[in-house]
């Protein structure tokens, strides 16, 4: 089934935040961000700005009626800077004007005097200076100290892992307007409406029931609108509250790039020990997460790095520590994979370096150590229905890895200035919010008298197709066509206390809540039908909008059944509640069962490098992926393709550049490059692994949003291998992204 939004999308009729028609008297907001990355605000002069016609108000932190605080997990982030600034672009003031143009013009006229302090950009430097956002955490299994002596090979190394700009094409924004008596309605481009509601309530000093947040859809998010949308929504709401007027705030691209956090860059050191038969016996790593100036979601992201720091492998002895380092960059935040890609890059680097040192094939080490059934993860959970080995083996067979190797070797022999390389990336990704309490959801379902169905959940549609899957769930449970089901906007007045749509769990959590609600309604309707047919409700089913008795048509249509139920005063509304069973996690021990299940897969990426110019092309991406029993393979394959290309972008061309003063240099689409259609791999082939799915996945269809992103890591190693084929002196480097600059320098590097 196609995305239910497609027709609206291709005709340009789908509505995004900035498309909501402005109410009369709507004012426009623009943000003054700090020009420097670290310093003291000595003076703010708004006189010139206020002189501009049509400037209505300039809001500073002193205007905030409630708390000047937007930190979601740790309270360490003001909405508007008070006396100090901690990153370039940090919001200091909000200008409200009659037009967007004037608002931005006025921003340029505000004069801020700073006393500039030195900025810290590098996480290791921050760590050295004792600048941590919160205490480090460590996961352990077995005992590494005692194992090193048993290792035949011990290899050490370092990684530098780049961040990533979300580059959703729709920038951040919000539209807030007063309804009456201090009640405010806010449209926000957010993945987390409740976070927005809570933040606004706090900033305005109001109870949450005074704030209604509504989201129709987002023009892309990828994690960038999970936490970071709240601040911008709070600014629009604050202005609207102070002026009692509708206020719209949409960020120009440069502001969005400068003011919002990104995927965390990490720096780290690893030590890996193997036996003579290439079993990994011990692994230690210290990772320095570049958290930026405030905690934001870093504690949770750090946690997921820990969870995924052993990749798809069983390693009996581990010790992994992650430090969240406070730097003068915008607070880094959620991004598809949520810390897992960095953890996995580190373990893959360790394996690649070990293979290079021992002089064996990387895939031999990889395959020897893949998770098997009942293997214990560092965090105590056991691998169940572990498909890691199956996926790896299938990839090798289906795509004939031996012939790929041969062809590449032959090509490299025959071409002096063009070299090919490939790499394999096995995947194991845990599904659930690692914070157990967030794994809950509600769905409100109404069946109207005419038989049409309305569904409200906490899920945010941002392109991942969750609304389509929800419509399918309702249709599957109720036995009606998807066109009878309307998935409504996500609204805090209809569905309260929501978790953000994140962690790949949107369809699982909300779909299961919807399934529960729909089932309750179905059972009620079955009773009604049983009454009508004078039979046992157990013999009733509904299929194709028709009531069946013992599987045979009863002559009662869905419409008639619904109307009869209503006339019999049967409740046709239901609020389903779902809380993922089984999961728990004890942070004091760092052990538990945090994930409902894991998603497995393996990908191969091949590349061709132009060794004269240092440029490259991604040739093929070949995957075996564990979708469970996909309820929508069209959408799921779309997620694979999109995630893979985004993952390849992260490891190849997407380079965040900050100068030493913490100023973002890659501040536009012209200087921060994301994949375009020409850069897309020649082929992406994905074979679904045939399984029964998992009972905790919605309709046994496994979560899909984040996991395939990690296949992109293979692009990095594939390019490294091509470089190696050209430059015999080349020693593997672990420094993402592998831009054409790095490729060229490495191709012509003399000695390591």
């Amino acid at each position, binding site marked *: 089934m*196609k*995305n239910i*939004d*497609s*027709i*609206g*999308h*291709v*005709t*340009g*009729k789908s509505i*995004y935040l*900035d*498309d909501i*028609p402005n109410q009369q008297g709507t004012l426009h907001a623009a943000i003054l961000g700090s020009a420097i990355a670290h310093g003291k605000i000595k003076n703010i002069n708004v006189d010139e700005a206020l002189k501009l016609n049509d400037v209505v108000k300039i809001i500073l932190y002193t205007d905030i009626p409630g708390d000047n605080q937007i930190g979601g997990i740790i309270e360490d982030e003001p909405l508007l800077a008070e006396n100090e600034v901690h990153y370039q672009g940090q919001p200091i003031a909000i200008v409200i004007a009659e037009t967007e*143009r004037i608002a931005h013009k006025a921003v340029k006229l505000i004069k801020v005097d700073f006393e500039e302090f030195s900025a810290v950009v590098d996480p290791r430097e921050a760590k050295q200076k004792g600048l941590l956002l919160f205490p480090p955490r460590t996961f352990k299994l077995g005992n590494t100290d005692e194992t090193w002596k048993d290792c035949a090979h011990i290899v050490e190394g370092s990684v530098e892992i780049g961040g990533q700009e*979300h580059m*959703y*094409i729709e*920038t951040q924004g919000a539209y807030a307007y007063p309804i009456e008596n201090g009640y405010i309605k806010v449209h926000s481009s957010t993945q987390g409406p409740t976070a927005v509601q809570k933040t606004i309530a706090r900033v305005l000093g109001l109870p949450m029931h005074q704030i209604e947040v509504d989201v129709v859809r987002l*023009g*892309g*998010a990828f994690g960038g609108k999970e936490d970071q949308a709240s601040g911008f929504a709070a600014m629009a709401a604050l202005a609207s509250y102070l002026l009692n007027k509708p206020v719209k705030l*949409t960020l120009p*691209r440069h502001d969005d790039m400068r003011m919002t956090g990104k995927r965390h860059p990490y720096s780290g050191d690893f030590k890996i020990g193997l036996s003579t038969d290439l079993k990994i016996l011990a692994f230690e790593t210290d990772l320095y997460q570049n958290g930026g100036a405030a905690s934001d979601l870093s504690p949770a992201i750090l946690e997921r790095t820990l969870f995924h720091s052993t990749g798809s492998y069983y390693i009996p002895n581990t010790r992994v520590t992650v430090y969240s380092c406070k730097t003068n960059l915008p607070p880094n935040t959620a991004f598809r994979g949520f810390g897992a890609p960095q953890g996995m890059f580190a373990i893959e680097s360790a394996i690649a370096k070990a293979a290079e040192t021992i002089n064996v094939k990387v895939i031999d080490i990889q395959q020897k150590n893949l998770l098997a059934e009942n293997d214990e993860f560092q965090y105590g959970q056991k691998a169940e229905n572990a498909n890691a080995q199956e996926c790896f083996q299938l990839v090798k067979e289906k795509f004939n890895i031996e012939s790929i190797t041969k062809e590449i070797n032959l090509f490299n022999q025959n071409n*002096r200035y063009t070299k090919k390389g490939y790499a394999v990336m096995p995947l194991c990704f845990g599904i659930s919010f690692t914070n157990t309490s967030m794994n809950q959801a509600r769905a409100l379902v109404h069946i109207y008298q005419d038989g049409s169905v309305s569904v409200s959940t906490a899920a945010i549609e*941002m*392109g991942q*197709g969750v609304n389509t899957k929800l419509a399918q769930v309702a249709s599957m449970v109720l036995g009606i066509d998807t066109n009878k089901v309307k998935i409504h906007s996500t609204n805090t007045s209809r569905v309260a206390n929501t978790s953000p749509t994140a962690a790949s769990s949107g369809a699982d959590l909300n779909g299961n809540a919807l399934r529960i609600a729909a089932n309750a309604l179905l059972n009620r309707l079955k009773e009604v039908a049983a009454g009508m047919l004078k039979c046992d409700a157990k013999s009733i089913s509904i299929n194709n909008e028709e009531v069946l008795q013992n599987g045979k048509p009863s002559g009662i249509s869905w419409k008639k059944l619904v109307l009869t139920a209503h006339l019999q005063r049967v409740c046709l509304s239901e609020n389903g509640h779902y809380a993922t069973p089984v999961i728990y996690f004890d942070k004091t021990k760092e052990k538990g069962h945090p994930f409902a299940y894991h998603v497995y897969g393996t990908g191969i990426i091949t590349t061709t490098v132009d060794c*004269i*110019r*240092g*440029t490259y092309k991604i040739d093929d991406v070949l995957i075996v992926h564990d979708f469970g029993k996909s309820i929508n393979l069209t*959408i799921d*394959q*779309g997620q694979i*393709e*999109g995630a893979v*290309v*985004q993952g390849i972008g992260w490891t190849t061309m997407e380079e965040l*550049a900050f100068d030493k003063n913490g100023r973002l*240099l890659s501040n*536009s*689409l*012209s*200087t921060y*490059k994301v*994949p*375009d*259609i*020409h*850069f*897309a*791999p020649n082929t*992406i082939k994905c074979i679904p692994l045939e399984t029964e799915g998992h009972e905790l996945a919605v309709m046994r269809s496994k979560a899909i949003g984040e996991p395939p992103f990690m296949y992109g890591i293979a692009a990095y190693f594939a390019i490294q291998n091509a470089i190696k084929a050209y430059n015999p002196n080349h020693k593997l480097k672990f420094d993402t992204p592998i*831009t*054409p*600059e790095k490729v*060229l*320098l490495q191709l012509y590097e003399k000695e390591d």
Partner: protein
Amino acid sequence: MIQFILNNRLVETDKKPGMSLLDYIRYEVGLPGTKVGCREGDCGACTVLIGELNNNKVDYKSIVSCLTPLVNVHGKHVVTIEGINLENDLTPVQKAMAENAATQCGFCTPGFVMSFTGFCMNHEKPTTSRAIESVAGNICRCTGYKSIQRAAEDITRLMQDKDIKNPVDWLVSKGYLPKYFLSIPDKLAEIHSKTEIPNNSEITVAGGTDLMVQKSDIVYESTIRPTKEIEHLQKIKFENQTCIIGGAATVTSLLQTEKLLQSIDGLRDYLMLVSSEPVRNIATIAGNIVNASPIADLSIMLLALNAQISSEIDGKVNTQPLDQLYTGYKQLKLQKGELITEIRFELPNANQQFNFEKVSKRQYLDIASVNSAMVIKVENNTITDCRISAGGVAPIPLYLQETSQFLIGKKISEQLFDEANDVMQNEISPIGDVRGTVEYKRLLLKQLLFAHFAKLFPDKMN
């Protein structure tokens, strides 16, 4: 008063001529299908089509509306996504996008649909690679593009029997466009008047693809001299072997000049490396020269071709070689208000060869880290004439005079290349920036010099 047809109706507006078409469409008229992604020509979310009347037919092309000042669409037909929607059906382009699941969040989608529709409306034989080129200026962060490529294949297949002489009629008859398109030629013919060009205009605007990025505020507030409105600047012509490019000719018009493509080997591929189709459709050669970016691709090519620049101020005409035009970073020997009227160069003759190299982080729609062009004449294995230029290695687009001179009279060999590189490294002065470190740019230019020779004389460089 600016007049044009927006979708199916005539609009007249006294909005500022420097207002962006995007702002006008979205916020003045209230058509929200055209999206704002970057306002810098780099994402394609704002793509619309403009049609121009030529011999009673309207020719359409895609443009980025964010960089197009309103004055530049005077007398034209502007088509947004709302203007191609059919009443009760999807167009085949829209169907191909929907059926291939080539839309996820949908924010980029109207832009893709418009670019593909522009592809359908052109006068070329449809091929999948052209279809893909037509959307190469559209960024999608969700799909990974494979589904969009599949849509491109479907669209190309459907277009195989398109009437390339009368694409619009054909497209209307097949349900790609609403019927009102048939009445557009007559409606456009009714807009006679040109916009008045103010006598004392403060700023000359051509395509706007540099100006609107760098100083849209100033363009908005200034009186504008649009070079698009100066008739004799639009053409590309030839006098014997001299090519004469008008001061308002666009990059796309180079691509449509057969004689140029035939005379300069590989030119089509090189021009494809310049920005993207909806930018090339409006970006001018003169704008590229005057903007004086050190990595300007066209300036680099024209330096190797030894172009001569004619300009005009107060009725006086000056002609100077391009390699003398730049005096420092963004400094040119042109007075304020001086108008480039012509760019002339000799087409390479049978003994001469041309090559262009450009490396950027992303191959397409990106600014070069370093680029270089070479025109070389080799007789009896000896270089008898040579002009090499390089961008991104100096404050200006640089003609490598010493390196070029050094090579003349020498025989091509790997060793010569090393010696030439030594000369060249002394001639350049790159700075480190977001497009590369000094070390990288030096190495890269060395490699590009090698690439020139390896490409043109593969047997001598192995």
